[in-house]
């Protein structure tokens, strides 16, 4: 099927097999390898992207289901857009969640990190001042094997603070 999806702000079109997963199209079709595949039972969240503003697991969606929709991946989260140009504005990383993750040592190997960041960014857009319990609930779909999660929860709290204190619009 021919699909057209807005990916990180740019319209992308392709002919895909109907059974192509969204995550595979993003990674292999578009070269956006920041979205990772960590499991095959939809439980690890490494593949989390934003679809029409919702955090979803790209491994559990067909690319054809995203036709006509807008997708934002980890590469597109920063201020500058798509592809392999990470956005860096003066003062550090562009997105408060990305910055907070680095500041709070909320990542070690980095494999789960894109999914964690996307899930966290979505939480903060809906709920700019989450409690610890709400953060834990928001990350229930994301696995990490390295950090033990404590610093990740702290990073989300810090990101919320950055958003509020610096008025960063996310």
């Amino acid at each position: 099927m021919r699909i057209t999806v807005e990916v990180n702000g740019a319209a992308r079109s392709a002919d895909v097999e109907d059974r192509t997963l969204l995550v595979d199209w993003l990674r292999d079709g578009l070269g956006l390898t920041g979205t990772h595949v960590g499991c095959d039972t939809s439980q690890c969240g490494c593949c989390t992207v934003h679809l029409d503003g919702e955090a979803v697991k790209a491994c559990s969606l067909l690319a054809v289901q995203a036709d006509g929709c807008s997708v934002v991946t980890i590469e597109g989260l920063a201020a500058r857009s798509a592809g392999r140009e990470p956005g860096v504005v003066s003062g550090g990383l562009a997105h408060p969640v990305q910055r907070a993750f680095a500041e709070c040592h909320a990542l070690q190997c980095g494999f789960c990190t894109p999914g964690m960041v996307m899930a966290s960014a979505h939480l903060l857009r809906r709920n700019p001042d989450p409690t610890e319990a709400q953060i834990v609930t928001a990350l229930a779909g994301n696995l990490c094997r390295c950090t033990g999660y404590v610093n990740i929860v702290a990073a989300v709290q810090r990101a919320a603070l950055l958003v509020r204190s610096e008025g960063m619009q996310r």
Partner: protein
Amino acid sequence: MVPFEVRRAHSVEEAVATLGSARDARLLAGGMTLIPALKHRLSSPSILVDLARIASLRSIESTARGRPGLWRLGAGVRHAEVAAHPGLNREHPALCALAAGIGDPQVRARGTLGGALANNDPAADYPAAVLGLDAQILTDRRSIAAADYFRGMFTTALEDDEVITAVEFAAPRSAVYRKFPHPATGYAMAGVFLARLASGDLRVAVTGVAQGVFRWHDAESALAKGHPLPRLVREDLLEDMHAPAGYRAHLAGVMLARALEGFPLGEAG
């Protein structure tokens, strides 16, 4: 995954027709159960009927119809939408809380009420609410009472080409859902939906414990009469490496006890 064709349905009629056109056509709602199953080759349909573009399946409306608090939820409504809906939260908070506890946030963004009910996983949450609230399952061709709908593990009263369009819930006087989650999947290892219906009747619906959701009649009558709660005795208790049957039965009792904390029992029927 085996190759298949995705056909987008723009109306319920179209969906029914496409389903009926091929023996191995399957409905694609949220995909939260179907797509993992396809990846593991547990299912090999040749056609998937995508319901996403049928707007009528996505609505949440209060229908009144002379019955206070009657709500119709489209089959395509996502768990996250139910959880966040202001009107439902006012009149059906237990239903919203149940939806808020399904899976994880990413699953709740896509998973649908209709999909959950059509699949009828013995440990799913929604069946407990549907049975506990005496809901009506509306399809393209009829209305099925909850009591008649659930037929066993992954089995329902639906015909092969039948499509759920909506579920109607009447607001209870009070309701609460308590779940003990499975440590690996988050499904119910025991989930109890306790409700005092508008009629005054008590309902105790249990999921996660047996081959399918069921009403715990012994507990209902014990509660109605003010007798001590019975232990759960059933032939078809689920048993696996995570929890033996006896433990699940016990958990059902514990979840009921938790549901009863603060539950207004004193109102007469």
